[in-house]
């Protein structure tokens, strides 16, 4: 087995196990921290695929910003076992059934889909370099890039508006 394969297996094991622990752990802070570890291992996958920029951006945005805000809110809310919501049995049953249905659909999709690995062509360009990435992003994919930034701006303004509304409502 090559080194990269071993690293991939270890990373994949960490990713999957922490993702499951995120759902299974009772303590909300623990599950948030498991999610952070999960994000770290996903950044490791990006590094294995030779994309430094994506890996570090993933770390900055998800682990460095979003998850810290998550932790913040959870810590300040001080969730205990007492105020855990108890769902009625019929809801749980419905959740299990719908999960199984989605699983069947997903498995069928994976069986019927044709893998296209091996069709990638090596163009010789160094996509690790952010210079190449910037050129591609701002020339070929200029319009989607600008649309994404407008979308983010709108979301930001929306978030500010929502928080303002609450204040004046009181």
């Amino acid at each position: 087995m090559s080194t990269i394969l071993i690293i991939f297996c270890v990373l994949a094991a960490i990713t999957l196990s922490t993702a499951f622990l995120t759902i299974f752990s009772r303590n909300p802070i623990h599950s948030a921290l498991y999610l952070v570890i999960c994000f770290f291992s996903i950044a490791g996958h990006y590094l294995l695929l030779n994309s430094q920029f994506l890996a570090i951006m993933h770390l900055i945005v998800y682990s460095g910003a979003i998850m810290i805000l998550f932790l913040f809110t959870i810590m300040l809310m001080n969730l205990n076992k007492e105020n855990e919501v108890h769902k009625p049995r019929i809801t749980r049953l419905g959740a299990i059934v719908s999960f199984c249905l989605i699983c069947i659909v997903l498995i069928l999709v994976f069986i019927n889909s044709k893998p296209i690995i091996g069709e990638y062509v090596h163009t010789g360009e160094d996509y690790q370099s952010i210079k190449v990435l910037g050129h591609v992003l701002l020339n070929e994919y200029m319009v989607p890039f600008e649309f994404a930034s407008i979308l983010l701006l709108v979301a930001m303004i929306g978030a500010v508006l929502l928080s303002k509304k609450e204040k004046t409502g009181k």
Partner: protein
Amino acid sequence: MDSTIIIEKSIIILVVFAITMLMAMYSTLAERKVAAWLQDRIGPNRAGKGGILQPLADGLKLFSKEEFEPNTPNRFLFFVGPAIAMSTALMTSAVIPWGDKFHLFGRDIILQATDIDIALLYIIGILSIGVYGIMIGGWASNNKFSLMGAVRAASQMISYEVAMGLSLIALLMMTGTLSLREISLQQSEMNWNVFYQPLSFLIFLICAFAETNRTPFDLAECETELIGGYHTEYSSMKMGFYLFAEYANMFISSAILAVLFFGGYNYPGMSWAVENWGVNIANIIGIAVLFAKICGFIFFYMWVRWTIPRFRYDQLMHLGWRILIPLSIINIVITGIVILRAEIASYLGF
């Protein structure tokens, strides 16, 4: 990959680690000496000559103290907190260029653990991860004061990260690269970035103070309101790790300031020294110059600490969000206009 590179890099990493530790250790002594000097006292002078062994004595004291543990359900996280704080403080040093090329044994040796393309982003990423050490430690202490201190420190660090990133964008527009090695190569002789980007330097400096939780931004450990902040419940060497991480952070951020804005290892007359004295001697002087710059910044940190009183919390947030962020955006716009003007001028042939 040939094994000599691995050996070479491991030696560099080990040396950088040792130097960071040494500098952090002696920063604690320097802090007390500077404080004493500014307050017209003598300072620690019992251990060794002029107090030179004081950091060792302090370390020994911290190691031999009783390890107290609060009644917390999260013992593991209580241990992990200081570990994260320490390791993130040390990880940043990997991308800092400590010197130019050495020519030894017929091969070029670059004094840098790794020269990655995204070094600046890496630094920002590690900084944002450093918040976890404080938050986890403060929360796992199972103490309201610790939690409030941790939340304060974390919100302060997140707020100032924004202004820090924006101030770096103006610098990046000018340098056109994220690699710290290339940035320091561009600043040869006296072409230091601080002369071209003074506003960016000022914002970065203020944010560096806030990121390292130093006075006047040390609201996290505001004794009058919060006892000891996020490390109230910590004792023995775990407490020592938090304090040590602060000094390691101070050293690393001084190094980043020196490399980004004050020319790194460059000094006026370096090319003359290369011609007349050879690469290696010129380089050794360069390393000494870099360390002199770093020590200057560390002294500046201490000078400010014993000069300016601590901000109030709303003043801190006001400064971060309403003054520094707009200022850095204005700086980006001005830099853009200047670059565009220069490009148009060269295009039209002026």
